[in-house]
């Protein structure tokens, strides 16, 4: 699954740690999601979408 997390984070000038703190997850989680090594669960995807005030499908797309 592709995602725009890195771009959205950069637009806000957030580090991976900043985003991790806001999502209450580890920095490793943010890095793994950004690099496509890990697809988040639906609850975490909703939390990410809520944080950016976007819909899930605006952040995550099929390969």
């Amino acid at each position: 699954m592709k995602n725009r997390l890195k771009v959205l984070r950069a637009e806000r000038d957030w580090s991976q740690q900043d985003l991790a703190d806001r999502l209450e997850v580890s920095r490793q989680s943010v890095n793994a999601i950004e690099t496509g090594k890990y697809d988040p669960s639906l609850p975490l995807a909703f939390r990410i979408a809520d944080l950016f005030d976007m819909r899930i499908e605006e952040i995550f797309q099929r390969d």
Partner: protein
Amino acid sequence: MAMYRSAATRRYLIRMAVLMSIYIMLIFTAGWTFRHTSIAGIPAYALAIAPALPIIGVFWAVMRLLVEEPDEFIRMLQVRQCLFATGFCLTVMTIWEFLQNYDLVAPGNGGFGAAFFWFVGLGLGAFFNKVTMGTVGGCA
């Protein structure tokens, strides 16, 4: 770069420290008692089993970590690590068993039982996570 350490991980490390301290105490107590006394019967069985209990406690601590870890990605890495350890342990023990069946190695395990190889497997599982996922996870 800050190492991730959740409350669950901190609890796991405390449990491990306590269990390992108890293990060290019991292994020396059992060793000394069997060497220097004529303990026999039920007390001997109880004392022989005693050092196994904190090791079983370590298995419990690892499983509690999997239940309590709030970060889903870290939890996935820990599960992978445990599965790798289980597969490694079963593989080593199965090969060893067959080597013993055909008298190619000496009977007994020289103190290197299933738990030892499972813990080695945890270490290898962490390395496997590092290579394939870029980070280790956190168990052991």
